[in-house]
């Protein structure tokens, strides 16, 4: 653990005594995601750190939980990064938004929402960013199952026929068989949690 992290940790512990945290490698894990905004604001304002620049927000899927990771830098002191992590349940992932503290969180939180489905509460405009409205699921989660793009499904056949395209019989039978079996054409297996 490098010195800056331990310093940040001690300062956070003294400045915000009710925030529970621990270190993982060179990063700080906030046990309770609700503390995130307070901790970030503290680090931004604390004269010892002045972490005024949020360079990236990433997310990760560890199968047991989702994680939202923040990289903070100080433009003033030319230090960083300080890495903050919060963990949320996969079923109802809710993390407070950092947009009120760092303006740069805006698009990055939308990206993490788009691909991991983490809901950033308090974000002014939480919409899909790369994918389109109406896309189902969150593709970077490890249990996302991608479609098999070589197999046409009933919806595709109907669409093609509506637009006057001749669909060969073999695709129609294939699609009908799939629909009869109540299956979707999927191309990959979902990940299994490590035990």
């Amino acid at each position, binding site marked *: 653990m490098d010195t800056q992290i331990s310093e940040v940790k001690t300062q956070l512990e003294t400045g915000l005594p009710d925030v529970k945290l621990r270190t993982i490698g060179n990063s700080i894990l906030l046990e309770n995601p609700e503390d995130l905004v307070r901790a970030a604001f503290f680090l931004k304002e604390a004269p010892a750190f002045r972490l005024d620049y949020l360079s990236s927000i990433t997310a990760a899927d560890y199968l047991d939980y989702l994680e939202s990771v923040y990289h903070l830098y100080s433009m003033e002191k030319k230090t960083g990064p300080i890495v903050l992590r919060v963990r949320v349940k996969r079923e109802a992932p809710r993390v407070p938004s950092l947009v009120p503290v760092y303006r740069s969180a805006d698009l990055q939180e939308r990206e993490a929402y788009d691909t991991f489905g983490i809901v950033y509460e308090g974000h002014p405009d939480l919409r899909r960013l790369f994918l389109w409205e109406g896309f*189902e699921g969150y*593709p970077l989660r490890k249990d996302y199952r991608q479609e098999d793009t070589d197999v046409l499904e009933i919806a595709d056949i109907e669409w093609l026929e509506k637009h006057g*395209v001749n669909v060969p019989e073999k695709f129609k039978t294939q699609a009908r068989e799939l629909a009869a079996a109540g299956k979707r054409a999927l191309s990959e297996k979902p990940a*299994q949690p490590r035990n």
Partner: protein
Amino acid sequence: MNHIENKSRIDPELRDEMAKQNIFITSLDFIYNWGRRSSVWPMQFGLACCAIEMIAAAAARYDIARFGAELFRASPRQADLMIVAGTVTKKMTPNVVRLYNQMAEPKYVLAMGACAISGGPFIDGYNVLRGIDRFIPVDVYVPGCPPRPEALLYGLMELQKKIDSQTFTKAEWYQKGLKREFPVPELGPNGLIPKFNPEIWQPREQDARKTRYGQTVLTGKKQKAPRLEPVAVPPPPAA
């Protein structure tokens, strides 16, 4: 590819003789194809890293102008050639197909780079189309990641050969009932609807990827999550 060479059947000696008298003779096919081949105007749009290489081909060092293709048109209505330079994401596909539909006949498509041909390094991506030839017919494929500007120029020369091999009288764009507008796919809940247009592209009977890697397209990926914290090793039992 087999091409008919664009050769005039006029006796060259006779032609030279007449040229001295300020009389120039040629065949309609020859001059028609010569004109088209020497001014292939590409459409000005790039999708990913390959576009940078296309720009390099257009700049002074490689100079696509030597082949008469330097006028990158900003409107599909004025373009002859669509260089699909880069990764076609599913989100972008409807726009690419629509641009193709808006081009005037005769129109050609050059798929530049592994991505435009097959999806390339992103073939397993949830948002990458596996080759633009699923929705529009492609005339020339230029493989590479990215193809060097020389390769693009070679592709253009191949296209010029194709243009030369077409005859004026049999040109398909003068035939009745030519259908070269294709339905624009829509963005669905899991990807594109439809996944491909069977009139243009159909999956191979034998999919080499599937035979080799099995049904799981993503080999080894997404299977496990890493452990961040070191696992606590239980203390050795007291002796």
